């Protein structure tokens, strides 16, 4: 009897804590999204899907949703493409590998907010050191106002997003590469397989589960990523770099429309849940065949 109860005692503290901090606010958000709410958060009449209807009629919301999808796809795919060769190199034995690893991992250790604030300064039109560096290299003749319009601000934010996602992804890939036994390569080499074939036939398939993990986790992180956009442009100018999280924050805390903000939260959760379920299904089907 005592033995049977033991595991429940062991998981109880973590379960209670996580449930209180995660399930209670979730319940609260569901109820906010279905009620008329005043600025001070008082619930009034039940209004069903009205907040959702208002959202879908708001062009800013629709634009932010599409931009979130572009943002997530661009950052995640960019990160994966950059990270595979970096991990392959860092897995080899070469002079200065320790230093290279530390340099590549560096953005992970530094707060995203700090990195974003520094980029905001570096991208400044008149005093920014990116413009002066590019002019010094002869790449541009006139200063670019990087953060003044979405067409230059958003690609820069994607670039920053990729840079800060690479360390985590490379770390996962390095873990995967360290589990590939060396004799597989030796066997392949004696069979006459070239470097490219070895990569295509051995490394990539064995790396597959790690790419899957990195893909899912990065998608969740990037989809929810707030500081890069908030600290560089704040979603501006004129909401043109807003993604769903910054839109949510503005609607909730600047405009005080708590009901609509709660509805955005639920839509975001639904998108993530759908993504995860579809992806896990696909990954499992692939694993079977």
């Amino acid at each position, binding site marked *: 009897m005592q033995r049977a109860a033991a595991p*429940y*005692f*062991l*998981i109880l*503290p973590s*379960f209670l*804590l*996580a449930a209180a901090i*995660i399930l209670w*606010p*979730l*319940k*609260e*958000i569901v109820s*906010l999204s279905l009620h008329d709410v005043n600025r001070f958060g008082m619930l009034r009449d039940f209004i069903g899907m009205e907040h959702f209807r208002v959202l879908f009629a708001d062009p800013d919301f629709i634009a932010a949703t599409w931009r979130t999808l572009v943002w997530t796809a661009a950052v995640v795919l960019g990160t994966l493409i950059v990270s595979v060769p970096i991990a392959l*190199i860092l897995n*080899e034995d*070469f*002079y*200065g590998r320790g230093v*290279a*690893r530390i*340099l*590549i991992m*560096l953005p*992970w*250790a*530094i*707060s*995203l*907010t*700090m990195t974003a*604030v*520094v980029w*905001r*300064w570096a991208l*400044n039109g008149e*005093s920014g050191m*990116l413009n002066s*560096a590019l002019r010094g290299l002869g790449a541009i003749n006139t200063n670019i106002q990087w953060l003044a319009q979405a067409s230059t601000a958003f690609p820069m934010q994607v*670039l920053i997003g990729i*840079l800060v996602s*690479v360390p985590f992804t490379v*770390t*996962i890939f390095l*873990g995967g590469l360290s*589990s590939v036994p060396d004799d597989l390569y030796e066997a392949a080499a004696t069979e006459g397989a070239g470097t490219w074939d070895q990569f295509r036939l051995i490394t990539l398939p064995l790396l597959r589960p*790690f790419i899957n*993990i990195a893909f899912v986790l990065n998608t*969740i*992180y990037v989809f*929810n990523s707030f*500081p890069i956009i908030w*600290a560089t442009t704040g979603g501006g100018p004129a909401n043109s770099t807003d993604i769903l*999280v910054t839109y*949510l*924050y503005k609607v909730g*805390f600047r405009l005080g429309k708590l009901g609509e903000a709660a509805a955005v*939260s639920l839509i975001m959760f639904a998108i*993530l849940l759908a993504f995860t379920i579809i992806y896990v299904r696909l990954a499992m089907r692939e694993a079977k065949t």
Partner: protein
Amino acid sequence: MSRKLKLSILFWLFLSPIVVVILFPYAVMTITSLKSATEVLNPNWWLSELHWQNFPEMWRTSGIAEALANSLYVSTLTTTLTTLVSIPAAYALSRYQFTGRDAFRQFLLVSQMLSPIVLVIGLFRLVAGVGMIDSLNVLVVIYTAFNIAFCVWMLQSYFSTIPRDLEEAAWMEGANRWRTLIAVFLPLAVPAMVVTAIFTFINAWNEFVIALTMLRTEGTYTLPIRVFSLVAGRYTVDWHYVMAAAFVASVPVAILFAWLQRYLVRGLAIGAVK
């Protein structure tokens, strides 16, 4: 030229563009933090003089000391609390079969997807409802809750790699379960605990959106909020002070991280697969 040297040159050539882009903002940060007030708006890369006074001046005027203390407090407490509640849960998942085990794992997975930002409206109501806006302890509890899933997961997969035979041998010798846990199991699990603790610490140290929402008075600001507040919503920004503050906020963690990152790679490698 040896093959290894040739390869090294080739690899560094390939890595150099990305290394340059990664280092670029931190170079900007360091250089700007040493510019004088008159030189700061001038985007030159070579300094006419190194203006070290920025650091003591920034320290006095920006409130960074207080923010540093707040961040240390929150991160240390979060790490301790997360470790304390995650180890038993991970132990239960790796050593017991029980009804609800899979349900608990699913719950952890879902809680990973519900990031703080998605729940921020509900969290704010929860915290405001109990009248604890501006409390650092509230941050500790929230950060802990959101770090539990990852830590339990990591610890659990590491625990599963520790062979049961060792514990069973100790039981044979007559040690009870509790004694075995303390003397045999936990010492073997130290590497995984260190990795998850570093993770949690860095997450708490760098967290932005919850702190931005819950901390309303300057005395309670953590480092990211403090530095952000030196920039946001101001007409004139003293960028040399901002960069000095960002430098002070980043360098200690970066050094700690550089020193510990090899363990991180090893720990994640084990944790990620299972």
